[in-house]
């Protein structure tokens, strides 16, 4: 087995027993990146020198007798998260050349835990998209079929984990941007509860929905990463002041005493038959592990798409007002006065999808339309959240597909924004309710991975990690790797 094929917990065993050093491990992954990157294009930037110097530092710490949760583990970071001294573009031309002067809290915590930052992964511009086709730089490719998308917006992180170009990764999830690419690439991806992880230093898309999360080769690796990044941060007033449980301890082998709900709104019309079959077979496995399966209802699910796109675009239109070409990033040199400079910088710097969402959001917030669109969406959001609250009185977690179909072809949906928005139909209501969710592989259709989504109550990551781990260990889907 090559070193780059290891999971995080396997690599930690090797590092702790001195079978190999972090420098050797990091070099193996960097060589793998150099070899595979022309095919996947998962990275926007590889920070080779910084990575090797962090690996040397990790080896020194270990030689001096120290240990830490991720000491010497090379990781990839979605390019939406600020990294001191490593360019952060959010996949946008408007931030070309920007080098953050500080680390996001999650990066600071990863570094303290000894992690090695390999580089920054591709994303749809400002995390707006489901395929990385909206990146201002290039489209990443799905390692299972290079003609297909890896999903998005954390598509670079998902492709990098899948192709063994890192041991694990961070992403962000506003409407499914971790779970959907994890599903399409056949890996495990976790969106923690809103407020569980600090967003200080994470570039904002839709502030009431954004959450940083983890992508890994298996569930245990997600638990390890979450352990490090979770917790209250005085720098982020939306982060929750709640104790962080021991996530490793939650990884139990059976599901005795667990009741799982199956919301019928996530099945049937619009969901590919083979995808539904994979989920039904996974439910049989969970039943055999001791889980009690019941049917539940989330009756307002069909409204979640318009609610999500009204709220997220309204918030985005406000958040993206800061990109004016004055304090950082790209700017227009031709303009004679300031309003023209704003218009031209934003016209040249933003891609089509970002412009579309700024337009939608500005319209939804504009005088005369606020009540009909934005306020109406916020009220409907209450109903969607109440659906989840009711469901979690009957069961501890919900089981659904992560996406309606496996990975689609590059170019297939780029000219139809609404068809692209439908891609998130199974994931975005969870961001509206603020709860947590994880996607893990549960089968293949025509050689492409299918994702199983496990949704949990607020701050109950323990239960979804438990359910995901028990199912994963009873099956072998997570061990399948693409031929590259």
């Amino acid at each position, binding site marked *: 087995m090559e070193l780059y094929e290891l999971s995080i917990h396997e690599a930690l065993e090797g590092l702790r027993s001195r079978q190999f050093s972090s420098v050797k491990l990091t070099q193996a992954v960097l060589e793998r990146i150099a070899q595979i990157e022309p095919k996947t294009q998962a990275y926007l930037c590889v920070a080779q020198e910084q990575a090797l110097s962090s690996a040397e530092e990790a080896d020194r710490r270990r030689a001096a007798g120290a240990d830490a949760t991720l000491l010497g583990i090379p990781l990839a970071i979605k390019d939406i998260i600020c990294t001191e001294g490593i360019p952060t573009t959010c996949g946008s031309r408007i931030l070309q050349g920007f080098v953050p002067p500080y680390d996001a809290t999650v990066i600071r915590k990863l570094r303290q835990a000894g992690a090695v930052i390999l580089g920054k992964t591709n994303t749809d511009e400002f995390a707006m998209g489901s395929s990385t086709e909206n990146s201002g730089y290039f489209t990443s490719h799905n390692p299972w079929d290079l003609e297909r998308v890896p999903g998005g917006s954390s598509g670079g992180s998902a492709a990098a984990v899948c192709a063994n170009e890192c041991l694990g990764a961070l992403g962000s999830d506003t409407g499914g941007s971790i779970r959907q690419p994890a599903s399409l690439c056949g890996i495990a991806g976790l969106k923690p509860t809103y407020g569980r992880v600090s967003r200080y230093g994470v570039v904002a898309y839709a502030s009431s929905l954004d959450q940083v999360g983890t992508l890994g080769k298996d569930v245990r690796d997600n638990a390890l990463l979450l352990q490090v990044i979770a917790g209250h941060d005085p720098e982020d007033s939306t982060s929750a002041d709640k104790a962080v449980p021991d996530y490793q301890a939650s990884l139990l082998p059976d599901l005795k005493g667990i009741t799982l709900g199956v919301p019928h709104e996530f099945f049937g019309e619009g969901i590919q038959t083979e995808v539904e079959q994979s989920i039904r077979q996974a439910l049989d496995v969970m039943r055999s592990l001791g889980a009690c399966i019941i049917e539940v209802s989330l009756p307002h699910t069909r409204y979640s798409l318009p609610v999500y796109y009204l709220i997220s675009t309204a918030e985005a239109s406000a958040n993206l007002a800061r990109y004016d070409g004055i304090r950082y*990033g790209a700017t227009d040199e031709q303009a004679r006065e300031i309003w023209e400079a704003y218009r031209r910088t934003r016209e040249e710097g933003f891609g089509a999808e970002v412009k579309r969402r700024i337009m939608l959001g500005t319209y939804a917030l504009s005088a005369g339309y606020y009540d009909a669109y934005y306020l109406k969406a916020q009220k409907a959001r209450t109903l969607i959240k109440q659906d989840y609250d009711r469901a979690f009185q009957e069961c501890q977690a919900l089981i659904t597909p992560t996406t309606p179909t496996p990975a689609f072809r590059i170019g297939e949906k780029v000219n139809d924004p609404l068809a692209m928005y439908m891609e998130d139909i199974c994931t975005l209501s969870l961001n509206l309710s603020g709860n947590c969710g994880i996607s893990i592989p549960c089968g293949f259709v025509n050689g492409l991975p299918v994702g199983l989504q496990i949704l949990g109550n607020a701050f109950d990551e323990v239960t979804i990690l438990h359910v995901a781990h028990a199912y994963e260990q009873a099956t072998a889907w997570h061990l399948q790797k693409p031929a590259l």
Partner: protein
Amino acid sequence: MKLDRDQVLHIAELAKLGLSAEEADRFTVQLSAILEYFELLDQLDTGAIPPTAMAIDQHNVLRKDSAGASLPVETVLQAPRTIGQFIAVKAVLD
């Protein structure tokens, strides 16, 4: 809800977003189609429902206003146009 081209240009001006003629045409069609789909929400009676601005209940989160270390000017100052340690902008007034 159908948008016309003038409305699209008005929204773009509110957002200080330059659009090419081709983009204005394309967005008129695409945004109209998206807003028509959003009319689904009209089926929902939300008269007595309070709005949700944030999913997790938190109010008036404050921290101590204590001064910490500042970032060095040379790494913070990344403006495309600068004069010394100042950020330069185009004329605001005629």
